[in-house]
């Protein structure tokens, strides 16, 4: 170890992964429906994609978690985004690609991707 910068580099890489173990009520929660219906329609790759991108981008204030059946099995995989103090946004018929788009647009830039939301698709 030759400098504080070198230490900082290791810390930042690791912190992205360790962010998973943070307990903070102000965190944004990305919830993926992982009941049988969700898994059958491909929720697992969506969950992995979300969890990877959040760590890659070092979004330590975002938690990617799962839940059981949301109740709209035909629209699975479903992803809900819960930001503190904001209304819940529900995205349906997700794929890993769409999920990445949502992280980029919604989580990072703060713009809801309306074309994938439940209100847009289900009407």
């Amino acid at each position, binding site marked *: *170890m*030759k*400098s*504080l910068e070198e*230490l900082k580099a*290791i*810390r930042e*890489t*690791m*912190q992205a*992964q*360790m962010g*998973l*173990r943070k*307990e903070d*009520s102000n965190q944004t929660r990305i919830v*993926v*429906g*992982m*009941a*049988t219906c969700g*898994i059958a329609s491909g929720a*697992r790759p969506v*969950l*992995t994609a*979300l*969890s*990877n991108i959040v*760590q*890659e981008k070092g979004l330590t204030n975002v*938690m*990617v*978690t*799962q*839940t*059981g059946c949301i109740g709209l099995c035909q629209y699975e995989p479903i992803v809900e985004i819960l930001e503190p103090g904001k209304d819940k946004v529900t995205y349906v018929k997700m794929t890993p690609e769409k999920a990445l788009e949502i992280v980029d647009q919604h989580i990072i830039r703060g713009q809801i991707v309306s074309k994938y939301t439940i209100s847009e698709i289900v009407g």
Partner: protein
Amino acid sequence: MYRSHVLVCGGTGCTSSGTPKVLEAFTDEIKKAGLEKEVAVVQTGCHGLCALGPIVVIYPEATFYSMVKPEDVFEIVNEHLLKGRIVTRLVYDETVSEEGITSISDTDFYKKQHRIALRNCGIINPESIDEYIATNGYEALGRALTQYTPDEVIQIILDSGLRGRGGGGFPTGLKWKLARGNDADQKYVCCNADEGDPGAFMDRSVLEGDPHVVLEAMAIAGYAIGASMGYIYIRAEYPIAVERLSIAISQAREYGLLGKNIFGSGFDFDIELRLGAGAFVCGEETALITSIEGNRGEPRPRPPFPAQKGLFQKPTILNNVETYANIPQIILNGAEWFSSLGTEKSKGTKVFALGGKIHNTGLVEIPMGTTLREVVEEIGGGIPDGKKFKAAQTGGPSGGCIPYSHYDIPIDYDNLLEIGSMMGSGGLIVMDEDNCMVDIAKFFLEFTVDESCGKCTPCRVGTKRLYEMLEKITEGKGTMEDLEKLEDLCKYIKENSLCGLGQSAPNPVLSTLQFFKDEYMAHVVDKKCPAAVCKALLSYVIDAELCKGCTLCSRSCPNNAISGKVKEAHIIDQDKCIKCGVCMEKCRFGAISIR
């Protein structure tokens, strides 16, 4: 990258209640479910709630599972990890409420705690230097070496008000300053990890859960006093701690955080382990130093103090594990932050190992000044079976008992000394109405008799005589004269012993004499043990009215002391009775009692 982390507690408590098998089951089941690329299994250090081990925490939800058995793992993996459904029946019940699952930090056990020394325990993998770095590890060392002079480092520690956590409470900064002031070609930094008090496991848990913090702090201390070599004296009975420390040392060397020219500052520092054979006296600083030197672990007179002539006759500082665990946080957050916690003369927090008659046996870290009542009733969850609190023993064989009349005392160094106990290293044993205080004093004396190194007479012979007197009292043979002699001898041993072991050995006797004189009197005058512990003073009797003559007791008695005919009341022959209590346990009619 992983989307979920399964943290399985690998402290000694959880390990002995089954962690290795649970860990294996997780690895297997996760593989079977095809989740091995999504879910990481990590072994951590102690979470503190040892009574409920093995503990498993699953992130990102931070679900706190307690008493997990290998056969539960299938369900956790397939429900929680695969389908996202938390297995409520296995979750620590304090976190389950009608509104769902609450955070572990809101439970009674955790909410009053403030974790500084234990901040990483249960959160990081102790065998990964990277995880330690992720939680700001080695940043304090880096800053100290590149931004502060040694004198500035010492000033920060002085200003923080940190006092030695090993028991004595000597100001840490002052110790460093004295060692810095002594010129020598070589100085040493030592770490006392020879935690010997019965019932104490604070230091072990820090070493098992966060070993790098001790290495980092010792390097900072080395820089501050001008030492390039450090020794950790740890008892061989702590195999998990020894292993994790060895791993930590080799990782730190590999990263150049130990060795030559650390952070390009020109500062060299290295650390070696020395294993102790488990002698209590080696927790005393001069004995510990003598033992590191390779000699028999016996104390030597002070002065010269270790800061002048310590290890190999060179200036040496010796701090306890928990003291070191506070250092990096003080450097990072500043002296003011630390001194804002705690009481006027005792700053920061203290880790206690709760044991004895208490619900939540385990490890807690509380701000100084928390009352004993809060620790026992709220954090500790009170005393089981609706029994009443009688006393808490702190400081192990060197400490004393705190009675109910001092239940609301704010715990800090000076308050405890004032009432004849001491902070000690942090063992806190809770006793209820079923504990006999004379017997407790005898228990600790038996320990010190065994552990006295024998070098000085007051301790070697004195503790033995004290023990014999207590034995006489518990056998109902004591006289009033014995009680006086007991007190005189205690004072003599305190004043004349060579080291801390002897000087503090009479404390359990003195403090029980002070607060529980009536119990001593009951043993001596009435020949009774009020708590019904001292066997010689008990007699088991059968109530002829209640006895149905079932003969179960006489058949169970190992010494054939019970006689009587079928369907007639039985009688215990007091001369033959060995007071084992089997008959009372067996009797289905509650006819047998202790008098």
